[in-house]
């Protein structure tokens, strides 16, 4: 579930337009979370930060109360009543492929948005701008390439 802060453009739009009268639907503004180390001082801060970590399309590093540092992609979370019965589900970036782990919020001492945000910095406007520059320079076969995985 995205936070209200993340969805504020859509929420604002719906305050003066009904879904049926929308001409162009609001998108989402990018939040720059890469490198962020949120303070997990209160329950509310912890919940909010882990909600953003769930929404984040890069790896994060969790430092557990046991001292273990766990880097991986958070693909799910379950919000319970307390931090003990709330948990994140993470796919570690190292080790056997797709061995998931479930970590209760209460065991998380620190969170770092350590991996690159794979949804950031590739805006469409940037592509359009580059496209016309390349076109003007007479280049052929212009494209955005998916990233190399190795």
């Amino acid at each position, binding site marked *: *579930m*995205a936070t209200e802060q*993340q*969805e504020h453009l*859509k929420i604002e*739009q*719906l305050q003066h*337009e009904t*879904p*049926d*009268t*929308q*001409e*162009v*639907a*609001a*998108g*989402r*503004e990018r939040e720059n979370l890469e490198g962020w180390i949120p303070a997990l001082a209160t329950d509310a801060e912890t919940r909010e930060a882990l909600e953003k970590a*769930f929404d984040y*399309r*890069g*790896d994060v590093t969790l430092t557990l109360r046991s001292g273990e540092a766990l880097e991986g*992609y958070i*693909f*799910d*979370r*379950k919000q319970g009543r307390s931090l003990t019965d709330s948990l994140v*589900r993470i*796919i570690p*970036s190292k080790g056997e*492929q*797709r061995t998931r782990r479930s970590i209760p919020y209460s065991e998380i001492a620190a969170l770092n948005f350590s991996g*690159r945000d*794979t*949804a950031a*910095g*590739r*805006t*469409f*406007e*940037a*592509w*359009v*701008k*580059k*496209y*016309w520059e*390349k*076109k003007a320079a007479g*280049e052929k*076969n*212009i*494209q*955005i*390439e*998916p*990233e190399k*995985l*190795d």
Partner: protein
Amino acid sequence: MAVPVAQAWTVATYVLKQKLKGRKRYPLVLMLEPLFRCNLACAGCGKIQYPAHILKAELTPEECFRAVEECGTPMVSIPGGEPLLHPRMPEIVQGLVDRKKYVYMCTNALLLKEKLHLFKPSKYLSFSVHVDGEREHHDFGVCREGGYDIAMEGVRAAVAAGFRVTTNTTLFDGADPHSVRRHFDQLMDAGVDSMMVSPGYTYDKAPDQKHFLGRARSRRLFRALLSNRKKRWQFNASPMFLEFLMGKRELTCTPWGMPTFSIFGWQKPCYLLQDGYADTFQELMDEVEWSNYGTESGNPRCANCMVHSGYEASGVNYTFGSLKGFVATAKAFFNWQYKDDDAAKLLNDWQPTSHGPLVQIGTPVISKASAIENHDTTAVVGS
């Protein structure tokens, strides 16, 4: 005939069986995503942005078959990522065909021609090729020059080899109905069996966040597009869903109609939104608070959605839900042309929107774009 009689019969009997069993919520098509990696990076796609270790992961054939058996739908669509990048895709497709599932293997067709020999034509198998419009529109939408020509070469090769081929066209703000109508002609000329068309969804991870069609504009666009149809156009969609797109019918979302299974598990609640994952199909059905989704729920993420994966099942459900629905569908078969003078005028008077250059590749409309982006990290070949 857009959908073969045997398939239509299978779907109809499946739906009626669910109704007789008194099941309130049942799925129609499994969206099976065996991998997320892709060989394109399209502007409107929010599916492929993941760290490398996630993009390298893939479902095994056994995991795919288990998911198919768990949810029991008569049809399986295989989107992705690009399914043809999965090294065991032929085995997955054959396993599904052996289970008599109607399979739509969705592909951007960049690899279709070279991999065609790995598949066998069957009435159960269709290649559903993603083509977003005429050459320039498609190339710009998929952010690759020459993409259209390769995709259409794949389409023609598959048709020539005796495969069923359908197409899938996603429209964003700026789409020109005249051009899309020409595109329909070109697809039918290429020998495709039928076409699917849908507005794009507001993926919040998509590179382009400014060209998502709102419902009002979607309805006008689809009315101009789908009224006064040509006889040769065959659509792979329920007539009620197409009427919904044209603003002729209200439908509410059926988020469980096309459940999605991927390397993360069963996606909650639908193909478009990611609110977490369930480990089993039953858990998905039991745990999701379904009333929180759909346009009528007030959920801002559902506000503009008119997408096939949410509303096609609603259309099918409407057809089989009451005599009224059945009669409306029967009428649609006779009134296939949707003659509409106002829609013809709407089409003739259509003005290209000024919301930017998503599909105007031939026209350098860069006023906004040039003012933006000092922090561009877009990878463009040759840069």
